[in-house]
């Protein structure tokens, strides 16, 4: 891991976003340090995905700023792939976009045990598509990777693979922003958890050497409020 674990990689300052006058994010402040895994926890509609889309630059902030020192990679959706194209050819498109060698494709496919490279993307199950989306995100040497509900549709083996892939990348200094409804998963992986309720970060919990205090309990307390 690179020295200076506290080097700021991404900062969100007072970020607000509305859709048709409905406030979705309200003055969101947080930062991500180098080599850190930050989990964002919140109910459906709390603004998690919007926040990731803002970080990716796909949506524009109404007010506030998001600054990032490095190029990002992301798997926030199984969209963006061509149904009538094989998995390998889809990955080739992304390798070109990310300026990666073709050898990176094989490495990423292997990471998620993808042996269906010659199958058309449209013929895959939701879980297989999710693995392809994750492999795409893990292509290249990015310092920050955004993963939106990465365990969705995955079988147990794939969840284990994802977990070890994240841990391996963390060791080499990569930071992650993860959103998930599976709190036990976040407990295992994250250094810090942000609770996002109705567009606001209402609580931030940092893991100690022994891990987190019970995130589920924390979530229940906050949702009752």
């Amino acid at each position, binding site marked *: 891991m690179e020295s200076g674990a506290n080097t700021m990689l991404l900062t969100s300052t007072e970020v607000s976003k509305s859709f048709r006058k409905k406030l979705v994010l309200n003055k969101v402040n947080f930062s991500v340090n180098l080599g850190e895994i930050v989990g964002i926890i919140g109910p459906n509609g709390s603004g998690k*995905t*919007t926040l990731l*889309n803002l970080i*990716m*630059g*796909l*949506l*524009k902030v109404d007010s506030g700023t998001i600054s990032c020192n490095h190029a*990002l990679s*992301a798997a*926030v*959706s*199984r*969209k*963006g*792939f*061509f*149904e*009538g*194209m*094989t998995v390998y*050819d889809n990955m*080739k*498109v*992304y390798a*070109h*976009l*990310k*300026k990666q060698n073709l050898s990176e494709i094989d490495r990423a496919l292997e990471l998620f045990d993808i042996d269906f490279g010659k199958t058309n993307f449209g013929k895959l199950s939701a879980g297989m598509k999710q693995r392809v989306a994750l492999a795409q995100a893990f292509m290249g040497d990015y310092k920050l990777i955004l993963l*939106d*509900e990465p365990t*969705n549709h995955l079988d147990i083996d794939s969840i284990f693979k994802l977990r070890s892939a994240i841990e391996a990348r963390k060791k080499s200094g990569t930071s992650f922003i993860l959103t998930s409804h599976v709190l036990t998963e976040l407990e295992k992986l994250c250094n810090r958890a942000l609770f996002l309720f109705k567009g606001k970060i209402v609580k931030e919990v940092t893991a100690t050497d022994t891990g987190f205090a019970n995130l589920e309990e924390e979530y229940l307390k906050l949702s009752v409020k």
Partner: protein
Amino acid sequence: MNYLYFEWIKLKSRRWIWALAAISIVGLPVAIKVVMGVSYINNEVAEGQFMEYAAFGFISFSSMYLFIPLWIIVFIGTEFGNGHVNQVVFNASDKDYFISKLVYCLLISLAYCLLGVITMVLVQVTAPFKVMVSLNFYGVFIFQSFFTFLSIALLFMAITFVARSIAVVFVSYFLLSFTEDLAFMFVKKIYDTELFFLPFHITSSLYVKGGERLTANYYNLFQNFDSRVLLLPVFLLAILWLTYRDFTKRELKPLSD
């Protein structure tokens, strides 16, 4: 980013594209050949005008629904629909996506231009009488067809970027084209004025006099130069600039499952 390579890998990797290409590669020359044969038998085309008539047929057929518009609308529309645009904007930039689509339009125009030359040679060689055509005819045809196809492709690219949906673009195309033809016809009849600057007329003005697509009035742009054609590049540049502005200012649909 190598735009040409990027567009090419997306084009060649989808099997249905080759089926679509086959429709153009086989369908267009055959359609032109049949139309020319029937027109000749029915004495609808003079021998001296035979190749001009074929050139008009090829360019106008190619500019219609199943050919160039389909390639532009379906491809770019799909990329907006399946989130590919978002991924390109995220991993590269909105400017890169826009340029890659300009390159795509160029590729399609070149492909159709090449197909046009092949079709013209086929029509000439298989004509029911000996057709004498100068190299100059081919030179003018290549110029007129290429720039007509490019103009049509860019116009449809702009419409697709604004509408961002295949269905909406096809309906808009039908309505716009229909309304424009009606407006052109009525204004010409009532006020004796040509609404030359309307989108589909101005883009057709490179091969048909006054952009009147409903007449088979193919003309040699260099012999009968119509200065109004000079408005076309200005029109296209304005459309592209406005489209680019809209694309970079307007938000994309958020990526989520």
